[in-house]
């Protein structure tokens, strides 16, 4: 892996993690679940990051 693709892989993994943390897992009764402030914003900015990583990667790289 080149250094730039290693960074890309870590970013992709972070987006996959955030997707899972926010959308996956067992939901325990709603009234005891506290929203964690700021996480949705983290999510949105990560999405933007990954699409820029993907579009920045030159085609035919393999």
């Amino acid at each position, binding site marked *: 892996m080149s250094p730039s693709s290693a960074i890309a892989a870590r970013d*992709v993994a*972070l987006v*996959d993690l955030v997707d*899972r943390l926010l959308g996956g897992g*067992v*939901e325990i009764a709603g009234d005891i679940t*506290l929203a964690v402030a700021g996480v949705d914003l983290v999510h949105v900015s990560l999405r933007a990051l990954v699409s820029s990583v*993907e579009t920045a990667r030159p085609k035919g790289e*393999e």
Partner: protein
Amino acid sequence: VIELLAITQDAGAPPPPLRVVPAGPVSVVVGPVPEGEVDAEALWAREALLEDLMEERSLLPIRFGTRVEDDAAAAEAVAPRGEELVAALERVRGAVELSVRAVDRGGADAAAVDDVHARLAAHAREYARHDGPEALRSAYLVDRAAIDGFVAAVRELQHEHPGLSILCTGPWPPYSFTEPR
């Protein structure tokens, strides 16, 4: 206030600061509420705790940010769903979740995407395919013994379909396979 991290049937003590609280037929892994901002580092720290636990026991991750007042409240929230959670643990026992995204880099048709999904699904116990901006966004529940074969299939598919960029991450705790089918 404590944070609920995972459901397990193994009552053995996890490494501190985590603890297990019995809740009917299952146990809840709980921990202190982390201090500081929720940034990428904090999320990875939480993930590392779960991945370490996952090495030695089957577990169901609990939705991020789930907090209750104390141990009694944790048991009270989880115990009524005990039977359902026992079945859910059985479903994921011995398996991990692998994530796959396929991004269209130009020229990939639906048949290529379906081929990727179908051939990966053949290595999986179950899958969950989601809508998203990518051509394919799926989670696969894969037996630990089948992980190597799955990864080899990803490489092979990437080679066969240069019009797609296939991104695979994991193994994850089974975040996408915790709710009843």
